[in-house]
């Protein structure tokens, strides 16, 4: 019988959720993605969070049709999706804004998941502060276009409206919730 890779296992998804919760609680700190030996880590992150109750936009075609079926997720346009997955190294389209929520329902906003090359030994220093950070946190990142951070700042200007970012490298994850201030040194 054909068995699915480890990331579709409930136990692995629980561990990956813990990493995501830790990452969202402690912005700028890297946490491991589990079970991604044969699958890309971004699929592992999506598998921990997505199901048929939410929608996904994939403008860079990072997720195969087979994985979309396994995730049981519905696809949507970028400005309507609950989750957006995109390449961090390419410049984002500046004319499309992901869902930012409303004043009374700020949770009805997109989570933007970006794939990057490296989160702990890259060439660019990302400085993060805000809730969850004791003072200031620095992360060495490669493969993230600076325009993402500029747009993020614009999208998160009117708290509580905004969107939350999750950066995923080959084996690690780092989050930037809307309350975090993040900029390259």
């Amino acid at each position, binding site marked *: 019988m054909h068995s699915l890779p480890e990331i579709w296992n409930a136990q692995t998804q629980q561990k990956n*959720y813990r990493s995501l919760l830790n990452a969202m609680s402690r912005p700028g700190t890297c946490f491991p993605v589990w079970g991604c030996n044969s699958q890309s880590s971004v699929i592992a992150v999506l598998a921990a969070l997505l199901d048929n109750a939410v929608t996904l936009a994939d403008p860079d075609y990072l997720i195969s049709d087979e994985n979309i079926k396994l995730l049981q997720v519905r696809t949507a346009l970028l400005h309507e999706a609950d989750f957006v997955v995109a390449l961090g190294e390419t410049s984002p389209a500046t004319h499309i804004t992901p869902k930012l929520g409303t*004043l009374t329902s700020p949770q009805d*906003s997109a989570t933007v998941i970006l794939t990057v090359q490296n989160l702990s030994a890259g060439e660019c220093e990302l400085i993060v502060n805000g*809730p969850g950070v004791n003072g200031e946190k620095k992360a060495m990142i490669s493969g993230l276009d600076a325009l993402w951070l500029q747009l993020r700042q614009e999208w998160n200007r009117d708290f509580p409206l905004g969107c939350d970012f999750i950066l995923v490298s080959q084996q690690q994850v780092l989050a930037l919730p809307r309350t975090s201030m993040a900029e390259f040194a």
Partner: protein
Amino acid sequence: MTEPFGYLDEHAKKEIRRACLKAVAIPGYQVPYASREMPMGRGFGTGGLQLTLSLIGAGDTLKVIDQGADDSVNAVSLRNFIELTCPGISTTTRTTDADIIQSRHRIPELALREDQYLILQVPYPDPLVIVEPSEEKRRISHGEGDYSRLLVKLYEDIVQFKEITISHRYPTRINNHYVIDPSPIPRWDLPKMHHSKALILLGAGREKKIYAVPPYTSAEPLAFSDVPFRIENFCDALGKRQACENCGSTQSFLDEYFDTHSGRKIYRCSDADWCLEQLQRRDALRHG
């Protein structure tokens, strides 16, 4: 058919997990979620229980407390249920040994660490409910960070009683925006929320809301510059701090009892693990 790990099905867990991530990303905001039916009545900690079940994994160590005690009916029932449905986890009564602490009405006296999670069971999540019956209007006030009516309520207390009379569920502003009901913890515990090292998750099962206080985030009780917030003081008429009858601690939140034989008022630590640790420390000093 066997029950899934953690009783809840994976779809339910994912929905709670998504709500938790949004709750952490928007500190203090009450994220609505589809609270599931649990095999116990709503109001018995089903909100906290669902948070724990979606978070816990094999290898974790769990502590469950009710008003500081590990051996009350509510704590024992919840702990037994989680042990039964989560094979591979361990349980403890020691705060220091726990990865996840689910609590009702107290935050442990021992300062929590970065690698620990505190889950609080919440009966009423919205502090504005005492001044505004419409949820729609409350959501607008929360979004705008407008708590003027709540401040008027506190001011009325001062006019009438010369102090703010809220003893527990004291409204607390998180990250300078949302005001939360921090669950029925005493005032004594509120300073522990401020810049806590551990992530604090709050779950209201009956009201179907999840909210969070991320680590290193401000949690400031509402107060006035000329009437500052103050915690309970356990001093007698002469100003001497009462001590725990068991361990002698003068550093903990105390429960008040009446000695049935002498009729004397006595005090004991509310946090059972803290009390035991102080006793063991005292014994160790005595014997060696």
